[in-house]
């Protein structure tokens, strides 16, 4: 067995308790180990991506129990790619958190950070539905700690909402899994796929209930429209580097949708046919629309970026909900882009908030305004999907894939108008924050509205800026190497739409 597969889970699982128990009082050592851990994770992720790129689906049987009985980890192109994305995202964020001093503002930042990475990587790698639930819980419980990191009344209140909402989501997940187990008698994803195909169409009422419940759970994680309410308040009130890390959490929901609804409840499965297409696509369109309107209407930069995250999830889920290989390839490219771009905007928003507060209104000019406004400009271009950055390529691919879809008109209209509204919203925010501030000297704002004087600390701006530039570099690389990246995601989509390979890899020759 290839032990690399389990390494992205084992490494943070060992490192995080080590940081808590041994390095508890040594922030410097915590930082060193944390960064080293993320670098090692990146190395592991590169290794397993190289292994998966060959196209073989590899299976790791925990405890050497064969597939339907034991829990399996499955490494295919999709999971390898998502683990790689997690590691690529984690590195700049941990550097930024160190550089900006966020990790000093509460306890156990680095330990929670690694627990979060463990949950995310585990969710991407597991081949068992209940194990997916467990890893969701791991990443959620770490995220509760990270979300309230640094404390403060407002953040804690937002934290209570976030925890309550996600506990409800977890309960729903258990109901869904119970229903699926009651119908199929198994929780192994590949085995579920086999059993679902065998169930006669007239007995599928419960199965459909289970599939819809499961979709609802993943939509909660992915912040699809009627279930997105938790996201703006949570992300905007979380420490923003943490919110940047949470950019991968919505992607966990998107990943789970792709995984379950290509493998088990695929488009050709009669029992659940039309389920996802009929419900997910309109929801995704409305998500994009509401995200764009939210960007335009936000009064606060963190909230605006949170709506950017919602809008980009909308675009992503539109591509996913088409359920064709082309569209999925586009979606996977867009996953990479939107995660990096969202994280970049959150970090830039943090730079802004540290210096002048987050209100989208003219205030006094802040320190390093030129550099930060340039970074905001890059992030805004990427997020809105303007050339030359990868957002443009991603949206182009999505539009191209939607061309032959039955409701191509509405998809095109929503994506294009949504992008336009996003551009206007981001331009408005940038203008008010960066340009108008210079005029504000002449007619100073009435005090009291933003009375709390910002201390404008500059702890280690060098490292923080390096991290932000790292994300920019990631976006540029993704643009330059769009060809190879797209080739990889096309092959990934091909692999996704031949679930037989996955099933036979997991369940062995018996099938």
């Amino acid at each position, binding site marked *: 067995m290839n032990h690399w597969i389990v390494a992205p889970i084992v490494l943070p699982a060992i490192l995080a308790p080590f940081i808590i128990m041994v390095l508890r009082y040594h922030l410097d050592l915590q930082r060193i180990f944390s960064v080293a851990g993320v670098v090692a994770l990146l190395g592991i992720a590169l290794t397993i991506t190289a292994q998966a790129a060959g196209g073989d689906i590899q299976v790791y049987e925990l405890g050497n129990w064969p597939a339907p009985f034991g829990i399996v980890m499955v490494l295919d192109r999709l999971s390898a790619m998502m683990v790689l994305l997690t590691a690529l995202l984690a590195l700049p964020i941990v550097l930024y958190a160190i550089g900006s001093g966020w990790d000093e*503002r509460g306890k156990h930042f680095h330990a929670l950070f690694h627990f979060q990475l463990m949950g995310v990587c585990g969710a991407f790698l597991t081949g068992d539905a209940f194990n997916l639930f467990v890893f969701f819980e791991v990443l959620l419980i770490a995220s509760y700690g990270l979300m309230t990191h640094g*404390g403060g*009344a407002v953040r804690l209140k937002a934290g209570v909402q976030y925890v309550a909402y996600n506990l*409800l989501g977890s309960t729903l997940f258990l109901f869904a899994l119970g229903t699926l187990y009651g119908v199929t008698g198994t929780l192994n994803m590949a085995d579920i796929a086999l059993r679902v195909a065998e169930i006669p169409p007239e007995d599928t009422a419960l199965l459909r209930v289970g599939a819809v419940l499961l979709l609802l759970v993943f939509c909660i994680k992915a912040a699809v429209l009627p279930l997105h309410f938790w996201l703006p*308040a949570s992300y905007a009130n979380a420490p923003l580097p943490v919110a940047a890390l949470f950019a991968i959490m919505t992607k966990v929901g998107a990943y789970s949708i792709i995984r379950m609804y290509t493998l088990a409840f695929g488009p050709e499965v009669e029992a659940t046919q039309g389920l996802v297409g009929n419900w997910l696509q309109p929801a995704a369109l409305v998500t994009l629309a509401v995200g764009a309107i939210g960007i335009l209407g936000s009064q606060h930069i963190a909230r605006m970026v949170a709506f950017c995250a919602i809008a980009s999830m909308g675009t992503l889920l539109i591509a996913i909900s088409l359920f064709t290989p082309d569209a999925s390839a586009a979606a996977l490219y867009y996953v990479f882009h939107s995660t990096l771009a969202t994280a970049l905007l959150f970090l830039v928003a943090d730079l802004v908030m540290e210096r002048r507060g987050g*209100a989208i209104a003219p205030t006094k000019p802040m320190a390093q305004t030129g550099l930060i406004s340039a970074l905001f400009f890059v992030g805004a271009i990427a997020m809105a999907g303007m050339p030359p950055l990868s957002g443009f390529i991603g949206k182009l691919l999505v539009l191209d894939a939607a061309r032959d879809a039955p409701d191509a008109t509405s998809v095109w209209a929503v994506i294009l108008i949504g992008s336009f509204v996003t551009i206007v919203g981001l331009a408005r925010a940038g203008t008010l924050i960066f340009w108008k501030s210079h005029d504000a000297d002449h007619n100073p704002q009435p005090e009291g509205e933003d009375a709390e004087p910002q201390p404008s600390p500059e702890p280690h701006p060098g490292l923080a800026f390096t991290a932000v530039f790292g994300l920019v570099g990631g976006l540029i690389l993704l643009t330059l190497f769009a060809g190879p990246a797209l080739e990889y995601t096309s092959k990934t989509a091909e692999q996704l739409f031949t679930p037989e390979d996955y099933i036979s890899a997991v369940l062995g020759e018996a099938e």
Partner: protein
Amino acid sequence: MEALVASAVGILTAAGIFLILRRRTFPVILGLSLITYAVNVFLFATGRLALNSPAVLNKYEDVPYTDPLPQALVLTAIVISFGMTAVIVMISLSAYLSSKDDHIDMSPHDSVDAPGEDA
């Protein structure tokens, strides 16, 4: 017995949802606990209801047995929900102590325009 278990799950869920829609944190947490009880019973029932049967196969004679997997799932779910309840109690307690207010919704003055009142 099926009716009893089914109505227990239904009533617990209904009561839980009613409590979750309250405005203060304490009833919301109680509601979450009720819903996790409901889901635990529900998970238990997904292995089919069998009375007086061991959770192991008997290789010598053909006696009825009950499905052990849901029991393992319930155990996991109980542990996780217990931990999560402890977490939400702690977070809402500190939110209450720091803001002197146990409403679950954000009041107007601390919502949109002042996220992250960090030091």
